[in-house]
């Protein structure tokens, strides 16, 4: 039996029945990573010794009979989520040698369950990108076609789950960074509501968008991990404990009948690669009794420009901390200012510099009202579009991306890269939860993802509907 093929639920069953030990499970993954990651480059660092130590502890816990659904389950963590004692590079030269002095709250929660942390995964530098090509440590390859990108910025995590280098992985999603790579790699990617999961220990990119989320082999797995890592955290004042009534909890295909699915026309305009597959998926849901309701989110076309003002603005403030004084790369300068300039010049890659420049421009005197403030007002309108739509529908379904995975080096122009987030950014502007699930593939056998968007804090509803879809 190939242990690495198992999802969380299956691995848990095997561990519980003593078919194999947590140690054997961890070894299977570590050996596979060692043998095969040269061609994928999903990992930036692997903690073999630490993982095996955790596996031994997990085995003791299993023997003592107090295991949970995640005890002994091996995971991979995006390299912008702090794991105490491990490097946290964010895919950047400026943090190349930075060792995390503490763990993120999500990591503490996973460790409490006895999860095994195999290593840290590759990403676009500071999560800025949609392909992992912006990593300072080389691109990750799409396991379905090594000439193509895995998506980004959580490309390493998505590729690791796809290649069975881990049972599940954590990522972060600021403008689509979990859903887009999940779609390109053919795995399940959940971006929770802004505030549903603590961001303590997640390296900040754009603080009003950033959210930690989950990449898994199945929807059930996503639900198990979400239940573990979500909730209020005293260390993150933007985290929340909101448990809305789960009107869809326990739904089965038999009662998809009253489900109202909003289909926003703005996401289906013109001809694009993934359209037909998504429309066929919608038919399947309709055949089960769900009602497809045409809706409009009229400000959709302004989402991407608003995002590319607000996110870089927040980033320019967040990244000012990398000045060579407190931690990270530190270049000697003639004076204090010269040291800042040299540290950032050497430490940051092109895309990070670009975004700092855009953000600084949008926030600078004379341009603040015209760019930043205007974009924040447009954000209000985009959010209002969703609020209005959700008055008459339960969920909204769209394609996750207009195309399947593109080729490495294909999108050299920054703007064309930004456009790959076109179907995912609105959700971040509005702070909503959304999941991408694989629903088919192109003629070239590249995966296609479908995005289900829910009302705030209704993760369980979109997860349940995704489960029903998979059981059709």
């Amino acid at each position: 039996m190939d242990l690495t093929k198992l999802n969380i639920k299956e691995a848990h069953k095997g561990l519980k029945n003593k078919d194999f030990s947590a140690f054997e499970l961890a070894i299977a993954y570590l050996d596979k990573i060692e043998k095969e990651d040269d061609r994928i480059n999903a990992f930036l660092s692997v903690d073999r010794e630490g993982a095996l130590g955790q596996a031994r502890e997990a085995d003791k816990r299993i023997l003592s009979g107090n295991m949970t659904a995640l005890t002994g389950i091996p995971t991979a963590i995006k390299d912008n989520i702090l794991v105490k004692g491990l490097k946290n590079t964010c895919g950047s030269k400026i943090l190349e040698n930075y060792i995390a002095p503490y763990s993120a709250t999500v990591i503490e929660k996973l460790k409490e369950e006895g999860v095994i942390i195999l290593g840290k995964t590759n990403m676009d530098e500071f999560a800025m990108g949609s392909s992992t090509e912006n990593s300072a440590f080389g691109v990750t390859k799409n396991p379905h076609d090594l000439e193509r990108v895995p998506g980004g910025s959580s490309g390493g995590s998505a590729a690791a789950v796809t290649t069975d280098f881990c049972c599940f992985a954590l990522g972060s999603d600021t403008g689509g960074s979990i859903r887009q790579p999940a779609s390109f790699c053919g795995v399940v990617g959940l971006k929770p509501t802004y505030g549903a999961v603590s961001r303590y220990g997640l390296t900040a990119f754009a603080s009003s968008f950033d959210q930690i989320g989950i990449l898994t082999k199945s929807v059930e797995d996503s639900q198990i991990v979400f239940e573990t890592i979500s909730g209020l955290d005293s260390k993150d004042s933007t985290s929340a404990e909101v448990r809305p009534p789960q009107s869809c909890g326990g739904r089965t295909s038999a009662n998809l009948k009253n489900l109202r699915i909003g289909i926003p026309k703005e996401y289906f305009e013109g001809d694009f690669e993934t359209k037909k597959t998504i429309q066929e998926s919608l038919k399947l849901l309709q055949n089960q009794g769900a009602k497809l309701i045409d809706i409009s989110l009229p400000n959709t076309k302004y989402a991407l420009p608003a995002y590319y003002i607000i996110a870089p603005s927040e980033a320019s403030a967040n990244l000012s901390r990398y000045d060579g004084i407190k931690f990270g790369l530190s270049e000697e300068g003639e004076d204090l200012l010269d040291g800042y300039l040299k540290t950032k010049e050497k430490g940051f890659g092109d895309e990070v510099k670009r975004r700092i420049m855009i953000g600084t421009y949008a926030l600078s005197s004379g341009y603040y009202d015209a760019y930043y403030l205007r974009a924040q007002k447009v954000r209000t309108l985009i959010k209002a579009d969703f609020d209005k739509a959700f008055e008459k529908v339960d969920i909204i379904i769209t394609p996750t991306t207009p195309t399947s995975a593109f080729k490495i080096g294909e999108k050299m122009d920054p703007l064309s890269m930004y456009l790959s987030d076109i179907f995912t950014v609105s959700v971040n502007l509005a702070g909503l939860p959304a999941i991408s699930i694989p629903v088919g593939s192109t003629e070239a056998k590249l995966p296609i993802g479908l995005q289900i968007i829910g009302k705030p804090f209704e993760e369980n509803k979109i997860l349940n509907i995704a489960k029903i879809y998979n059981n059709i």
Partner: protein
Amino acid sequence: MIKKEDVRHIAKLARLGISISEEVGLQKDLSSVLDYVNLLNKVDVSDVEPTYHPMAKFFKKNIIREDIGEDQQIADDLIKLMPQIEERHTKVKSILN
């Protein structure tokens, strides 16, 4: 197209060192992004309030806690990350000459 002086001015505000060749690339890239985001000028935002927190309605009051020190060890670990340390202080170049 934004001017080269503007690129230099923004880089200065951002405390970001850029080379001459980067300056040319940034001038082009920034101009194309700014052209694109100018699409926002078509939106009527006259009576619209800005959104700074996407889930503000779930956060009706400020989040505060008692001012009690917690983990002492973390402070020492953070100090260890500083590139130049003298005792428990970070060392920087003089600011005033």
